[in-house]
């Protein structure tokens, strides 16, 4: 059980979207590029005119690690666990930390395409999971 940390106002739209099983990321209304994590101004053009845009739950795998050593007490119950970094297909420049079912380890490779699902757990922040296509 990982208690949910306080979510700053500028991060809330992400979790409002995940509560409806959507993914949304900050996009600049002027240069139309995405960025991540949330910032006060577009890091590409400095515009403060940002909006959250819903995108497809599709991504490609950038990297991953199977974590064997718990770095916090909360993590002790779940080692070993798999964490990945994925690039959103429809939000260029957004790379998301995701969980991956550890059974998928043998099939992982950089660039692997897959789908994203939202995991809801009572009392915890929503989490995003990546499932490679090949395993479907």
């Amino acid at each position, binding site marked *: 059980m990982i208690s949910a940390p306080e979510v700053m106002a500028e991060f809330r739209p992400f979790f409002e979207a995940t509560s409806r099983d959507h993914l949304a990321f900050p996009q600049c209304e002027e240069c139309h590029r995405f960025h991540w994590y949330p910032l006060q101004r577009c890091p590409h053009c400095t515009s403060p005119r940002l909006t959250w845009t819903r995108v497809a739950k599709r991504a490609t795998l950038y990297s991953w690690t199977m974590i064997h050593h718990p770095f916090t007490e909360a993590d002790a119950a779940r080692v070993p666990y798999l964490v990945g970094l994925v690039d959103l297909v429809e939000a260029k420049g957004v790379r998301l*930390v995701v969980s991956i079912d550890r059974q998928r380890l043998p099939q992982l490779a950089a660039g692997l395409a897959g789908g994203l699902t939202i995991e809801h757990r009572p009392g915890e*922040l929503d*989490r995003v999971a990546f499932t490679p296509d090949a395993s479907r």
Partner: protein
Amino acid sequence: MVVDAVLAAILDAGLTPADVDGIMSDSIIMPVTVPHDYVAGQLGITRTYDATISYGGAAMMCAPLLAAQAIKSGLAKVVVFYFGVDWGSRPGGPYGYHSLYPAKGVFEQPYGYSGQPAYFAMMARRYRETYGLPQEHLGRIALNQRHNALLNGRAQVKAPLTLEGYLNGRPIADPLTLNDCCVITDGVGAYVMTSDDRADSCARRPVRVLGAGYAAEAITADDVFSQPDLTRFPAVQVAMERALASADVTRDDIDFAEIYDCFSISCLLQLEGLGFCKRGEGGAFVAEGHTALDGKLPVNTHGGFLSYSYRLGIEHVLEAVRQLRGEAGAAQVKDASVGLVTGLSVPEYGALLLGRA
């Protein structure tokens, strides 16, 4: 402990605290743990100069940049720099730094993506996917530093390490194993900077600051372990070019390097970023023996963070000083006259070039 180290550094130079008129440290860790006034008040140091730079790692390599300006412009005559950590005993240890970054708290920690080994494992995995990286190549970094560490008798880790032992090491965050990760330490260090003229009349043989470079890329510290290209560190190349230019030396002039080695992969990526080998060739560079004590670029001659101690680079500076004074004992690099010391506090980077006086 910090106060003792500062006093020891001052006395070692043949000076007294009354000679010191400037204090420096990093900008983030020392000001809230051991502030300058706490040190000054106990040692009786009246300051006309006070400065901080960078967060931990890059600070000890960049402080001479500012100190040189202060001394040349007359703001100070003698500046002492100090740094210490208690991450060996402080609850949360090095991981406590996550609390500074709100995005990490909601977008990374709930996934268990916290703890520096996880970040650097992610880098190592991406690097392996991009360039190939035999586990043995990472192991050669750990082995090389363990060998060096056992020569000085002061290192935190005392046990020898074999390749077989390395390959069977306890997995931490795949592909990093126990011996790919730095030790954790409570410890301090300090050094004194002054003009060349003053230094030449001090008790100990001085070491020259040949040049230094600081750089930081336009990326927030929230983002550094997820958003950028994870097969390189930001700012390394720029800081190195600035250090070389200010010192008027070339890479070929560098006799040894003390490289910020929080993990084996960190050392490898810096060898590439600093320009000692091409991207993707860092593993081979190490495996070919170039970073051994008898190689063309001995690296982390005291054992580094992996085997000596993890004090975010202050000991890297002290080891470079020992090498350039000819006091490095069994690990002495023959005819060492130019040494490089590097510091990483992503997205910042520091490169310091020191020379034999």
